[in-house]
């Protein structure tokens, strides 16, 4: 039996030190998703705490059929969707402002470190626009894009996390991408950013 399973069993017996070890193993993963969803260090911190609290009380519902981290991500997304709905206030997102993790300043979007500096600045600006556009989508669209595009989950995993069918995931993702693209175009226009032009070769390679 692997170590995580043993820790889960011990946690089910109210062994808090076992649960603390589980938190230590998975906190970065949960925190990162929380941060991608909330785009705020403080909110991600609150959300992560809530996820582990909720996980502790729902441990019985974890059936080992999914990876424990994926299960925690499912709780993360659900909590976030619900609190957002209750709050009903749109996210306010600032572009590329450094955030503090308590000791160091971290940038939201890392610019490419290779290539010429102008290009990396440009890509940083563009990433900022995409981040802002993402924050303006509906919660469901944001979640599906974050899970698939940023976290790199498969369709199957996204459908498990969001508790919907594969077909729904695919169609939601398609719509989300479409809306995101429109939003990016709109924001780019507003901020005077020139969107990438045509470079067929690259496109063909990537597609």
């Amino acid at each position, binding site marked *: 039996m692997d170590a995580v399973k043993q820790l889960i069993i011990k946690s089910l017996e*109210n062994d*808090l030190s076992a*649960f*603390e070890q589980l*938190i*230590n193993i998975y*906190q*970065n993963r*949960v*925190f*990162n998703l929380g*941060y*991608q969803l909330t785009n705020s*260090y*403080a909110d991600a*911190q*609150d959300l992560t*705490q*809530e996820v*582990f*609290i909720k996980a*502790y009380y729902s*441990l019985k519902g974890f059936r080992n059929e999914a990876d424990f981290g994926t299960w925690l991500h499912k709780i993360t997304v659900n909590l976030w969707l619900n609190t957002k709905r*209750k*709050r*009903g*206030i749109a996210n*306010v997102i*600032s572009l590329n402002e450094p955030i*503090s*993790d*308590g000791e160091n300043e*971290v940038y*939201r979007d*890392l610019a*490419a470190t290779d290539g010429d500096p102008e290009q990396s600045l440009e*890509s940083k600006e*563009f*990433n900022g626009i*995409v*981040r802002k556009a*993402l924050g303006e989508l509906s919660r469901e669209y944001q979640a599906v894009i974050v899970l*698939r*595009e*940023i*976290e790199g989950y498969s*369709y199957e995993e996204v459908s498990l996390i969001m508790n919907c069918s594969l077909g729904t995931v695919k169609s939601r993702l398609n719509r989300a*991408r479409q809306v995101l693209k429109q939003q*990016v*175009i709109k924001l780019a226009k507003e901020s005077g950013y020139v*969107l*990438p*032009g*045509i*470079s*067929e070769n690259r*496109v*063909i390679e*990537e*597609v």
Partner: protein
Amino acid sequence: MNCRKAKSILMSDEPLLIEKRALSEHLAVCSGCAVEADRFSAISKALHEMNSPIKAPDGLAAQVISRLRPESASPKEVYSPAPYRRFQWSQTWKRSLAAAAAVVLLMGGSMGIATRLGVLNIFGSPAVVVKTSSPQPAAKIPVQSNKTQNTPQSGSESVQVQKNDSQSNNLPEPEKAANNNLTAQTTTQQIITEPKVFLNVPRSIECILWKIKVADINNATDKMLAWARTGGISYSVENKITLDDSRTINIFRFGAPKASVDKFSNFISGLGGILEQDRNTRNVTDEFADKLERYHSLLAQKENSDGQQTKQLDAEIKAVEYELTLMDKEAQDQVVFIVWLQN
């Protein structure tokens, strides 16, 4: 291939090989779709670059564990008292942002808000109370003065600013009736629920207020909570008000043993620039008596309730009991610190 088909393949991120080939043939001759493809790929690249791992804040595990370690540590326990409901609170506060901002304007004094929002009901009868209706009445009860607790309801998320002039006007009819029947019913109730016994004796609570401007609010908050934990200081109220994207206010209420008061004061004053500092002692004898009366009245109501109503009353009883216990403890051997941090 037509443009429509090309776009649908563009948006699918798992195209078949044959589709890819047909698509590239189409893109070579259709500049419109080529631009579209370029945009999708640029957005996709930007999204991938956002996955820059950030380390979870230090002490997160300890904070979670401390929240899971109340007196009754059974995972089945549904109710958790105020200090263990951090997230819901902060959400509630964010929701009441607009109302809070309005109150700030109304009162023009920052310390005043905390008092009047009902956070610091220790400072006397609040003239204005911001009440946030929440689907989880138990979660909000401990923040508010007992004057605003009579509303276990769900669904509504409105934020109201209320004026409360006298408590009796706010009591719903059944509660008044329950008050009258108090003696007879409490006797039976005590056997069933084993309520705590509180005595009506003179009580006063000493309170020290600090309002500090800090450079990094998360860092200062973490440091302060870590200090409190190691120094055996409990903290019982935490609220977070986000005024805008960059300005946050965190309010904490600590119960410090009398022996640690000076050390804790020194630590707090070193966190940043001191904006305000105050110290007062308040007689809470009457407030305690009012709460105790409410406690007994709730117990009596529970006697005549059933099902969902009993559950709600139980949560409310626990909340009031928690407040009474806290007040009792604070009056006996603690000094209350209200620390307001802002950046």
